[in-house]
């Protein structure tokens, strides 16, 4: 491999990488900056929350919304895979259908390099871009923790929770890559189906905590295997991570297979 496509894909996305990283970082600082006042009025908030139905509390994935971990989960970590999932979808769709739409795939596919290599370099570029965004996000968490020590969570746990969110994001990216490699030129349909997958599985995950009927479907969502509260309390959940790694690999291999088989540009 020359890694030229990988480098180009990363270079093409550096603005997006810093845009998303800085945006999420500033949002994280805002959320952390509000925590001291939330913590100071913890008793009042808890009293207020008692009047809310249990099912609503379950949707936040924790029953302790005002501890540092509960607060971070309910206000921030819960949304990171969802938000970055949107960017992952854009990355996945651009990988093949974007190149087909711009017709640059004509020259790429005529190069003496196998198709799997083109897709693999692009997929790895997406992985690196996501790590880049999460690193900026993580640094802002560390900065926020230093500025507002009330958010008393260890740096290593913050790192674990941040970087573990990469896996559900890559599952979403895998779905987008698979659709991009499979659906001929139909970027819109690829986008719609990927977005439905992201929002649908997220809703199943969130509502499943409050409904037994929906709960049965939770194991089929990537978010089920990323529990920031558990990670922040007790470290990485290896079994969960393995499920996400396997799902990502399966989607990646399926993308390679369909991309190899497909008539491009049709």
């Amino acid at each position, binding site marked *: 491999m*020359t890694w*030229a*496509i990988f480098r*180009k894909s990363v270079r*093409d996305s550096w603005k997006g990488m810093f845009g998303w990283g800085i945006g999420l970082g500033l949002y994280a600082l805002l959320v952390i900056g509000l925590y001291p006042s939330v913590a100071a009025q913890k008793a009042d908030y808890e009293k207020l929350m008692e009047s809310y139905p249990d099912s609503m509390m379950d949707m936040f994935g924790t029953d302790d919304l005002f501890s540092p971990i509960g607060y971070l989960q309910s206000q921030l970590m819960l949304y990171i895979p969802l938000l970055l999932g949107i960017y992952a979808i854009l990355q996945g769709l651009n990988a093949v259908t974007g190149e087909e739409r*711009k*017709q*640059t*795939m*004509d*020259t790429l*596919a*005529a*190069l*003496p*390099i*196998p198709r799997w290599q083109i897709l693999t370099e692009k997929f790895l570029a997406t992985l690196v871009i996501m790590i880049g965004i999460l690193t900026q996000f993580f640094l802002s968490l560390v900065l926020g923790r230093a500025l507002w020590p009330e958010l008393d969570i260890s740096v290593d746990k913050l790192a674990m929770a941040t970087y573990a969110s990469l896996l559900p994001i890559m599952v979403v990216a895998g779905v987008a890559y698979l659709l991009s490699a499979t659906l001929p030129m139909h970027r819109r349909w690829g986008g719609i189906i990927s977005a439905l997958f992201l929002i649908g599985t997220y809703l199943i995950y969130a509502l499943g905590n409050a409904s037994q009927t929906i709960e049965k479907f939770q194991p089929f969502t990537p978010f089920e295997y990323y529990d920031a509260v558990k990670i922040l309390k007790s470290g990485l959940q290896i079994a969960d991570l393995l499920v996400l790694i396997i799902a990502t690999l399966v989607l990646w291999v399926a993308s390679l297979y369909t991309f190899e088989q497909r*008539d*491009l*540009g*049709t």
Partner: protein
Amino acid sequence: MIEVQNLVKKYGEFTALHGISFKAKEGEILGFLGPNGAGKTTTMRILTGFMPPTSGVAKVAGHDIFDESLAAREKIGYLPETVPLYPDMTVQGYLEFMAELRHVPERKKRTQEVLQLVGMEHRAKSLIRSISKGMRQRVGLAQSLIHNPPVLILDEPTIGLDPAQVADLRGFIRDLRTQHTVMFSTHILSEAEQICDRVVIINRGQIVAQGAPRELRSKLNLGSRIYVEARGRADQKSLANTLSKIQGVKFAEPYQNGVVVNVKDNKDVRPALAAAVLENGLELLELRPVAITLEEIFLEVTTALGAEEDA
């Protein structure tokens, strides 16, 4: 250098190519002619490994494009119809990127060489989005030449260019003949006639004629034509009527300031034409053969195929 045998391409129920076969020899410029939707781009995309055929064989520089796809693709330089480039890259950056993907040794040096070859060295640092269409076409050509391939496949390379740019590019393609086999598609027939050693005419996914333009003229037995211009009392219409009665003349019709006479089976009717003009009391000003253009050959073969299919 390029060998295609019984190539078939189907998209579901629709058959884009119906078992076409043709060859291009080393150092030859092969024109691939046909109206829009005839199957030119599909054929070229198959040859470049962009898409597989449904059946048939295609070889480039002795390598089967499917069984030895990577080896075959190494031998091909490809300029797609739309000249797809990355607008955010510089001209030089793009060419170095393509050189790296093509495993070109000393790619910076080679990039400078091809920039010089296509006359773009002064715009090497320009962003692709800021250069004109003609320049983009040249960058596309430079990209296809970066690895000095023995075979060049150019899909409608002159489309969208202004007349000066078209003339430049045609000259450039002619010069490539010394080192490369060039296959280029066009629907501009005069262009093919000017540049190509041989042409393949494709229509509705079938090859309807192939050969050197001169060969095609005689093979299709389109006869010959003679332009006659005379001065006197008779008008063009009556002169045409008179000339069309001569033995060996298919028909005659007014053209420019005179009459064009279509002759059956390449018979030499010039003496009879001259005599007829003089017998009618006219002064003969001009009598010269008129070449049958590739346009006419093209129309003849594509119309014949259309009529056959409709029947």
